[in-house]
């Protein structure tokens, strides 16, 4: 069975390395601040005992006042998983760092989030729309898109 790592445990480990990076943590989830995302992600991928080298998916949810980008990470070796979230308040031009450098699997998925939600990812090699055509106005999966 894939063990779902406890958010609180991992939060403690992360706080030791990068103080102030964890915004919220509970049994199931872990919310990280956007500026610390890349460091925390590298830490999660490379530390002994965590080694979360497989990115299951990246997606975004629109909660009216903030966007939440969800990452599900797994480890092939230890067979455990962890859900990491990043929140972005405000709907104008949201920007987040991209994790393509760490997990190449995020490539098309981050483009999809940009296409359907409008969240830009800095550091992505090819940030442009993926499903809709280039001149499309608006971001369909937002709650205020009819």
């Amino acid at each position: 069975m894939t063990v779902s790592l406890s958010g609180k445990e991992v939060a403690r480990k992360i706080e030791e390395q990068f103080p102030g990076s964890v915004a919220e943590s509970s049994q199931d989830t872990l919310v990280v601040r956007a500026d610390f995302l890349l460091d925390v992600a590298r830490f999660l991928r490379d530390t002994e005992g965590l080694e979360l080298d497989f990115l299951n998916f990246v997606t975004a949810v629109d909660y009216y006042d903030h966007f939440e980008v969800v990452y599900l990470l797994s480890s092939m070796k230890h067979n455990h998983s962890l859900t990491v979230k990043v929140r972005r308040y405000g709907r104008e031009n949201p920007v987040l760092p991209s994790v393509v450098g760490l997990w190449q699997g995020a490539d098309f998925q981050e483009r999809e989030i940009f296409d359907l939600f409008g969240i830009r990812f800095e550091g992505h090699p090819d940030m442009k729309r993926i499903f809709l055509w280039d001149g499309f106005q608006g971001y369909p999966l937002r709650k205020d898109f009819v």
Partner: protein
Amino acid sequence: MAVKTEPFVLNMGPVHPSTHGVFRMRATLDGEVVVDIEPVFGYLHRGIEKLAEQRTYTGVIPLTDRLDYISSMSNNLAYCLAVEKLAGIKVPERAEYIRVIMAELQRIAALLIAVGAFLNDCGAYFTPFLYMFRERERIVDLFEMASGQRLTYNYMRAGGVSQDLPEEFMPALRKFMDMMPRYMDEYDRLLMQNEILIARAKGVGILTAEQAINCSASGPVLRASGVKWDVRKADPYSIYDHFDFDVPIQQTGDCYDRYRQRVEEMRQSLRIIQQAMEQLPSGPVKAEVPHLIRPPAGEAYARLEAPKGELGFYLVSDNAIAPYRCHIRPPSLINLTALRDMVRGWKVADLIIIFGSIDITVGEIDR
């Protein structure tokens, strides 16, 4: 002194005999050698994720059929698993066994198409493709007996399956299981040792294990690269822990290994179906769930081992009758992340073969 050449862009457009659907690739070629490719998606984008927010939880099931339309049972099952996890619904035993039988039959049917299409891309002019279709016809007939449909079944429900198996299903399934092993051996003999196929596919488009894990590849693509990771064993869902089956892996991760991997997985599916058939209990096939399911607020991610890879549904609910957010983790799209690195340096003919061996369905990529 080298001859000065100039690369040109060849557009393998959305309408092409071998791009497995409306998929477009812009390949930069230097003569016959591929320098770079750029996949262009979106020709089948229907906005399923947005549509799901406006349908009831049960009303999303027909939408999920149309994702990977050649393996609809798996899509239905993945979504139902997510809803059950979210709402805390317990599935009766007979329903679990029926689900497993359907899912494994669907796996065989989808892998048959994958193998047939791959051999077709290699140039064996439809012959293996049509042989595979002969068996797929029998499976599809079984599905038609159970659900009334041949392609988009809409069979699973949150809490079980929509209706019980008719009486003629089990005898027909037994007959199918009796004759299938002979055909599996025939597929092995057909082209596995053919020298032309080995020359075309061995060593071509190698995906190493580290690359595969980094690119989040899953399913037969990952296992052919040597990583022993199968969601049915690593994170068992439904009642897969009751069955005894192996997870085959291959060593190199070239096209030939992916082809071999799919044939081996078909064999394991037959084993599972045999065991499920023998252990099938009687009882209700659907839990008592209200017509309009209203799960408590929260989120859930359920995944299963679809024929193409790890198919997952991430559902967020806010205690309404429609999902707040339904995200589909598409195995085909994510497996394609590795395509660019696999293809550089090979020729146009190899590009088609490598692309065929990853085995995509555009309905799942574009959603």
